[in-house]
């Protein structure tokens, strides 16, 4: 549902009402795909989340049950990590928006007379995708390590306490999330700013609006579809991300996010019900938050 926000905001013409077998036939592959690769795994996930340990109690052995307490146990044990995931994701989304909006505005509006510059800038935004995101995150771990130029430099300038470090801290994790998701924010913003009709801005100017108030009352509302889709594209994966916060990358034992809890329960403790319960909760929580956000931002008509 939310992703229809990418569609052009102009209302498309009403499709012909006539029932078409061809249309149904064309839909069939998509429906089958969703059934097989979304609905079946989702059901299996929900069933797993309700399993109980077998009598033997051996590691990784579970039986079908209706153990709804798996959910309350998971919240009790990992409530802090769940909350932290959303705090980090919100922070990363806000930072990404603050970085991306000027960038997208520059590329989409200011650089409009210079197509070559515009294309080059767009390529630069997309360029990081040419390298695996795991490698880029590992590179940041190296760049932010204790003996790196960045950290020793900050310490020399007394911007960082002499015994402070960056990797393994919330700062590093939020930084990593922001860095990795900036292109997902910039591109939809660019797509909507690129279509911004500059005559509206002129009109604002003619009506004696200050540039700031034109920006606030004209530019932002017109780029709202881009903001909404950029925020969704950043927030949803960031909340479930388990790479940046992983101890092997930028995180530490104090920065664990829900994705890391799921990974650890699934792979190491072999506690499949707990891992599945956390996954279901993550999904539901994101759905609720996104619904609230979309309603609040007054963009239901976009969806």
């Amino acid at each position: 549902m939310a992703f229809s926000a990418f569609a052009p905001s102009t209302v498309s013409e009403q499709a012909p009402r006539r029932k078409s077998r061809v249309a149904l036939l064309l839909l069939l592959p998509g429906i089958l795909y969703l059934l097989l690769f979304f609905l079946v795994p989702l059901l299996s996930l929900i069933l797993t989340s309700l399993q109980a340990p077998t009598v033997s109690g051996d590691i990784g052995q579970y039986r079908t049950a209706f153990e709804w307490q798996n959910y309350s146990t998971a919240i009790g044990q990992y409530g802090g990590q769940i909350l932290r995931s959303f705090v980090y994701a919100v922070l990363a989304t806000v930072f990404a928006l603050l970085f991306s909006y000027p960038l997208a505005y520059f590329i989409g509006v200011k650089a409009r007379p210079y197509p070559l510059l515009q294309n080059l800038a767009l390529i630069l935004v997309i360029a990081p995708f040419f390298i695996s995101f795991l490698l880029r995150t590992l590179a940041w771990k190296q760049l932010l390590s204790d003996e790196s130029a960045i950290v020793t430099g900050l310490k020399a300038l007394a911007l960082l306490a002499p015994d402070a470090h960056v990797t393994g801290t919330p700062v590093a994790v939020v930084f990593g999330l922001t860095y990795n998701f900036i292109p997902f924010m910039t591109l939809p913003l660019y797509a909507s700013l690129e279509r911004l009709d500059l005559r509206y801005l002129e009109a604002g100017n003619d009506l004696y609006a200050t540039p700031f108030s034109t920006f606030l009352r004209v530019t932002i509302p017109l780029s709202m579809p881009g903001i909404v889709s950029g925020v969704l594209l950043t927030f949803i994966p960031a909340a479930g991300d388990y790479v940046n916060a992983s101890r092997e990358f930028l995180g530490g034992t104090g920065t664990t996010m829900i994705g890391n809890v799921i990974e650890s329960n699934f792979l190491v403790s072999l506690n499949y019900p707990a891992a599945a319960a956390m996954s279901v909760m993550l999904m539901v929580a994101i759905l609720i938050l996104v619904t609230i956000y979309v309603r609040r931002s007054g963009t239901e008509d976009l969806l």
Partner: protein
Amino acid sequence: MPLPLSADPTVKQLVSLARQSQISRRAVLSGASLAAVGLSVAACSSSATGGQAKPSAAADGSASDKTLVWANWPGYLDQDENKKSPTLDAFRTQSGLDVTYDVAIDDNNTYYGKVKDQLALGQDIGADLVCLTDWMIGRLIRFGYVQKLDETKIPNKKNLTPTLQNPDFDPGRTLSLPWQGGFAGICWNKEKIPGGLKSVSDLWNPKYKGRIGVLTEMRDTIGLIMLENGVDIASKWNDDAFMNATDDFKKHVVSGQIRNVKGNAYLEDLKSEDTIAAICWSGDITTLNGEAGNKWEFAIPSAGATLWNDNYVVPIGSKRKSNAESLMNYYYEPEVAAEIAAYVNYITPVVGAQAVAAAKYPELANNQLIFPNTDTLAKAHIFRTLSPAEENTYNAAFQAVLLGS
């Protein structure tokens, strides 16, 4: 009228090759359909049977199938300049087997997660020989996921070090054989800590706050802390002994003394100097010094080190057990084992390898981390096998610290 077979040997060979490819194509097809059925069965039955029913071993087709897939950890086999293994190439020529060496394992848990569903159904996991750590082998044996080895096909088993012949998870070594072993101890950066470290408690010196790394391998990290607390980790200790050590560990994680808890990646932290001292594995430090300047030193802590082994097993679904056994037998030749030990810097379980290495690599023969003498071995302890309930509880407690909950 059937065509007479050509007498030309080349043509004969081609015909037989063509037949082989037919067979393998059929095998692949049936394998694919089996796998599909298996997946659907796995989806329905994994919870129903609760994993209690043990799978049965696949029939051995080694007589006709001269291939073998060996899954192992990175950096665990000798290598020449061309990235080829001289010992394995010699085995290929000698045995005529087509051996695929697959560096597929970088973590016991991840590898187990990848293959456990096939193992539970007794299916081929795409490897005929896998090397995993003691405790994981214990789990595989408990669930009946490995095949019994035929001693008559591994005569060199007589070369197995006596201390490793009767581990509690496999008395008499009927199902597994050690590949390499090593110590978990402490190491430090000689430039940053010129005085060196003596015990695990030295790691908790406030001077090194935030610069200490420890391992995600529970039995090594908690094992060393338990030893420091005076617990003999090989004996039948109780829950308190484990939980006390876990509390100590948690205290240093929460206080920030311990910078991070990592698997193999702890070496990167040592290199980047995020950590200047760590709980680490013996062979890695020798290798690291070779790669990145002679900067680190490893020591067995005063209270003792943990000793672990990675062991070969033949997974239950493998159809090439005899081939696997002949490879194990080959690597139990002292001459071959000496080559491996000299390259990987871990402890070989093969008696006689030291004598061979002493002649060929005199500088290695007295390295206590590769060829430990009885004094050194007396300081090394094997973490006892846990009961299923213990494995569950302790894992959860240890993971809770790693997740900060």
